[in-house]
């Protein structure tokens, strides 16, 4: 899993089947994809990781979703919220990726959470579909927020993941396109390629040492 598109939505959430998306991902230079709400597997050399999306207002709801999901290796991705929720999401250890950070206030993810996320190897997802889909003020806000996250990432070293957020094969982006789009908010080529490879790192992260007995 060297290069991974961190979130795509196959049928029935989009207009393309999972297999077709896997073929398209391979043509676009990826060797794995995270597909929302499907079981993991492999198709024509492309590894498919099942993604679980948790959109909750309280940590208890996320914990309930995490307990229900038994399929392995699945990537639990939770939507960001206020500061307290984000802190709880990062500290629980179940959530691997925090998504939709751009919808939250700027102070909901600060240098303290960045440091904890780096320690616990919890990634922050940058969804490129918002940059492509939005126009004007909304796009500017997303670019501003992503630039801020990139700044924190460079300082504290927490993982970033990059997703196309594609609901169709026409919305999927190649590595080349992703690199160009990421340059809009200050993530350079090396940083983008590292972020495309960080899903593997997040899935196989080292657990903290526990003292038993």
């Amino acid at each position, binding site marked *: 899993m060297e290069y991974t598109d961190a979130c795509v939505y196959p049928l029935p959430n989009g207009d393309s089947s999972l*297999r077709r998306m896997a*073929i398209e991902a391979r043509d676009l230079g990826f060797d794995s994809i995270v597909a929302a709400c499907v079981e993991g597997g492999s198709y024509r050399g492309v590894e498919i990781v099942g993604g679980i999306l948790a959109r909750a207002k309280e940590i208890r709801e996320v914990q309930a979703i995490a307990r229900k999901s038994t399929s392995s290796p699945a990537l639990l991705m939770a939507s960001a919220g206020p500061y307290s929720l984000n802190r709880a999401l990062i500290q629980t250890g179940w959530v691997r990726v925090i998504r939709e950070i751009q919808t939250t206030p700027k102070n909901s993810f600060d240098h303290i959470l960045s440091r904890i996320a780096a320690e616990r190897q919890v990634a922050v997802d940058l969804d490129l579909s918002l940059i492509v889909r939005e*126009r004007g003020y909304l796009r500017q806000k997303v670019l501003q927020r992503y630039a801020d996250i990139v700044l924190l990432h460079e300082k504290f070293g927490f993982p970033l993941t990059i997703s196309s957020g594609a609901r169709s094969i*026409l919305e999927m982006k190649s590595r080349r*396109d992703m690199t160009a789009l990421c340059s809009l908010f200050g993530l350079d080529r090396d940083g983008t390629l590292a972020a495309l490879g960080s899903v593997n790192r997040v899935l196989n992260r080292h657990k903290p040492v526990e003292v038993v007995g």
Partner: protein
Amino acid sequence: MKPRPPTMRGKHRYILVRTDPPGLDLDGRTLYYAVAESLTDLYGDAGVARIQPSVVSCSDGCAIIRCSRAAEDEVIAGLAALTNIHDKKIAVRSILTSGTMRSLRQQKERWNAPAPSPCEDVPFQGKSWIPVRYRGTKVDLFEKGFKNQERLFLTEEDLEE
């Protein structure tokens, strides 16, 4: 009038792009306006004036786009942000960048979209669809009807299930 010497001319880069889905009837002028609009959205009028985009050729699902040197990444970002033309969903994927058109023309043959082959109607999810098959196992399904036709992107194996 004496032509300007080569050293004083503006330097350009050429980008080979592929348009998806295959079979779209797209001319150079339409593509140019779409690309210019996308770039204007991203970089503004001053940015587009600096980038100097133009569509050099457009045929068989491939196009060559020219831009000023050092602006190729900005053009690629603009192409990636292009999602529809005349309310039709489209993807413009950059393939190669070069300093001359000759090398891109040689590569273009590889990327030309194969002609789709329409077949008999197939049932899928309780509806009747018109399938269009491409090289490999790719199948596009078009909903039967006159307007607002839904399009699904599947594989042969999806249809067999």
